[in-house]
């Protein structure tokens, strides 16, 4: 706590001292100090749940700290809303973009401003925004509706939104998580150009190599406490940072035993499907997964991953093509048929798809077993058998709950994921579709999930692992296929990150044939 307060001559634009923030059951920030200097890119590093976003949400006026002082440009501040923070020149770019999909770029940028007084003179503002975007080298059409834009373009809109408000301090929450490698490079160019024009940037990340690459100084958080405050990046190594972040030496690799894949379990042939907006999302996709192998599916979000998982599990209709599971085509069959064929599914969205929040743990784990003996008996659900089954899973998968009657909405993210994994794995699936199984979990929980997936592979399950974490894909997968605009562009089995990165942006290995011309 006894860290020296930098004097004002060092150009400190933000200083947060002794910040404490409590949530029910969690101490999210425990006397954290953070100092940002003018014209620097300052990384805020920490694993999921370390309190990075909480700290920055406090700076952005979304949360009020329970204790601590914040000084911006020499003035003590007490933000009670994001508006106050923006007025002080602080703009936050959230991980989930805060853009209204049905409105245009200009409308989104004008949102929340005091001007225009009443009438929306859009064409006038369209010009202003074009000028601003050119100044920082970010191309975007001000008249386009946000839902029509790519993820990278949406991010640019977010940045423009803050620049237009005159923000001098930009907080970027995990900005690279959703971008393809080439888009990351573009973003870094933009960041450097902004710093050159006098802006200061806080870069929240849990990816060490990016922190090393882009930032000048770094502050590390670990379980709500800062383990390093404003250390110059040039003076530390990746391993140092990792230790500060996790508090112990980190094992970067998963033990993967060599295993000869068996028979083909999943064979997807020439699959075509539409997304929720009615636009083509899968365009003639082909993929096979064998017994005892993990196939990783890499790709920038929104290239058809979700639709592929949905079609295989029966949640979405396809317009053409086949999904053959263990020799039978189950495309456009009811979900039940897939479940009966041994398809299990770890959905991307745990709370909205994977669980019934107000129902008990027991009711949640029997979701796919309630109509099978021994849990079913005749037309009834055998409550005793169900409870016994749930107790057994709780034991085996180390689910921490007060009682089995607790509604799952009261569970932590890691525990909820364990409930879902327990349910999906305990049926000894022939095929497992795992979508972002570790997103939002802390390091310990991630390791647990990885171990469970590897155990399933070794037990002979065919696993399709869909993830946006390249490291995870390469560590776990026997092969990595890359999806781009609804097609598989190629496969990599030797962990060649550069090749995967190239394909994620649409450059096919070797001669690219245009299959959808």
């Amino acid at each position, binding site marked *: 706590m006894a860290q020296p307060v930098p004097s004002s001559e060092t150009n400190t634009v933000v200083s947060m001292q002794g910040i404490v923030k409590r949530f029910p059951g969690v101490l999210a920030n425990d006397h954290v100090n953070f100092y940002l200097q003018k014209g620097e890119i300052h990384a805020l590093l920490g694993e999921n749940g370390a309190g990075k976003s909480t700290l920055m949400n406090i700076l952005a006026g979304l949360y009020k700290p329970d204790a601590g002082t914040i000084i911006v440009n020499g003035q003590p501040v007490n933000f009670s809303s994001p508006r106050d923070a923006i007025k002080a020149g602080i703009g936050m770019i959230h991980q989930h973009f805060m853009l209204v999909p049905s409105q245009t770029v200009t409308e989104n940028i004008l949102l929340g401003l005091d001007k225009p007084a009443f009438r929306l003179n859009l064409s006038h503002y369209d010009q202003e925004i074009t000028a601003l975007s050119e100044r920082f080298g970010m191309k975007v059409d001000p008249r386009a509706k946000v839902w029509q834009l790519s993820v990278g373009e949406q991010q640019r809109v977010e940045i423009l939104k803050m620049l237009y408000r005159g923000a001098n301090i930009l907080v970027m929450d995990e900005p690279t998580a959703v971008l393809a490698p080439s888009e990351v490079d573009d973003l870094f160019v933009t960041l450097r150009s902004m710093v050159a024009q006098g802006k200061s940037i806080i870069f929240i990340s849990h990816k060490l190599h990016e922190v090393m690459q882009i930032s000048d100084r770094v502050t590390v958080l670990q379980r709500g406490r800062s383990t390093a405050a404003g250390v110059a990046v040039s003076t530390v190594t990746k391993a140092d940072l990792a230790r500060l972040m996790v508090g112990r030496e980190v094992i970067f690799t998963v033990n993967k035993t060599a295993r000869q894949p068996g028979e083909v379990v999943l064979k997807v042939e020439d699959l075509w499907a539409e997304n929720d907006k009615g636009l083509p999302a899968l365009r003639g996709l082909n993929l096979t997964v064998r017994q005892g192998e993990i196939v990783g599916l890499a790709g920038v979000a929104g290239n058809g991953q979700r639709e592929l998982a949905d079609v295989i599990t029966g949640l979405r209709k396809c317009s053409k093509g086949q999904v053959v599971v263990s020799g039978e085509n189950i495309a456009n069959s009811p979900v039940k048929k897939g479940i009966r064929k041994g398809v299990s599914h770890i959905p991307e969205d745990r709370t909205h798809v994977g669980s019934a929040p107000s129902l008990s743990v027991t*009711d949640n784990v029997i979701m796919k077993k309630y109509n099978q003996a021994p849990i079913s008996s005749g037309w009834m659900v055998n409550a005793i058998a169900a409870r016994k089954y749930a107790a057994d899973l709780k034991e085996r998968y180390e689910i921490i709950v007060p009682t089995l009657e607790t509604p799952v909405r009261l569970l932590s993210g890691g525990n909820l994921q364990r409930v879902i994994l327990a349910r999906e794995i305990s049926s000894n699936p022939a095929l497992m579709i795992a979508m972002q199984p570790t997103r939002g979990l802390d390091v310990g929980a991630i390791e647990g999930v990885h171990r469970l997936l590897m155990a399933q592979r070794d037990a002979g399950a065919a696993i399709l692992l869909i993830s946006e974490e390249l490291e995870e894909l390469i560590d776990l997968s026997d092969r990595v296929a890359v999806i781009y605009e609804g097609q598989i562009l190629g496969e990599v089995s030797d962990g060649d990150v550069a090749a995967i990165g190239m394909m994620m942006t649409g450059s096919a290995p070797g001669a690219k044939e245009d299959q959808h011309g």
Partner: protein
Amino acid sequence: MAESGLPRANWLDRLPYRVMLEPRLKPPSRFFSLMLSFGSVVVALLIGAIVLAIAGGDPWATYAHIVKASFGSVGVLSDTMVKAIPLMIVGLACTLAFRMKLWNIGAEGQFYAGAFGASAVVLAPMLPADAPGWLFIICMVAAGMLMGAAWGFVPGILKARFNVNEVISTLMMNYIAISWNNYWIYAVWTEGGFQMSKVFPKNAWLPRLADYAVEIPFFRGLTTHFGLVLAVIAAVVVWLILYRSQWGYEIRLVGDNPRAAEYAGISIARNTVLVMMLSGALAGLAGMSEITGVVHRLQGSISPGYGFTGIIVAWLAKLNPYAVIPVSILFGALILAGREIQPSGIPKMMNGVILVCLIASDFLLRYRVRLVRRGEEA
């Protein structure tokens, strides 16, 4: 991580204490939730008293009158039960549908449809007038439930196929049901030009306690009828369906999270239609029991809003089928005594106040409210 999501006015910041809201990490006890429901009814009665006083009435006299006129003697208690029977069955109909978050507001119409179906057995006629009573009961129950189910089927299929908002479609079906009944009692089954059918033959009446007065003199004059048995059977059946059957599991899962249900391979469309039909059938049963147990003929205004009060009953019972029975008796009392209360809108308004208080109190089931002195927050 959820911080309290309440808008905060600035003047509040200046008070020495501040209200802290915390999401509950453990479900509250049954006792707390029971007390909360009880408390909200008390608050509602207080609010009602204030409005009554403003409207120029004497609230305490009115409440005393309600208690006396509905529980004061065995006779009025029996009359209270008569009013409670349709509420029980309609309350169960709503409980079933609401468990799936299917907002069946059409119990009133389904009630009329059920009454029509039951009457058709006598008036069409489908059975000879001298058929045995048990045969009448069975056929009338079947016909009433069938018509109710048909009335529920329409919004159900529209919701399943076209995603038509069931609140509005069930409500529209109410108006249609009432016009439909009116047509039959005015045009077809009218007796001597009056807007009512002829009285049903005695063997088409549900047995009442008074019918056994010869054997048990205590029952003399008591109007409670066989519908009570039907209601209790229905409560047990609904409980078994919701909490013991696979279908009930599906209903609860769809109600809590339709996307999870889909993901578990449960057909939402199929369940929507089936639940609407069974809910309609139950409301139809209520109509049947009213027409054959109390009115004994088909006529207009057979319901003082049973279909709507059933919604409140289901909510106050926290969608627990067994709790529907005692709650219905309370509301039966309100309906019975309410007929003499002036102004006549009071019972209806009280229903509204009670429901508003109940729904507001649900907030306390999810959040804990604490008063914290500034600077001592921990």
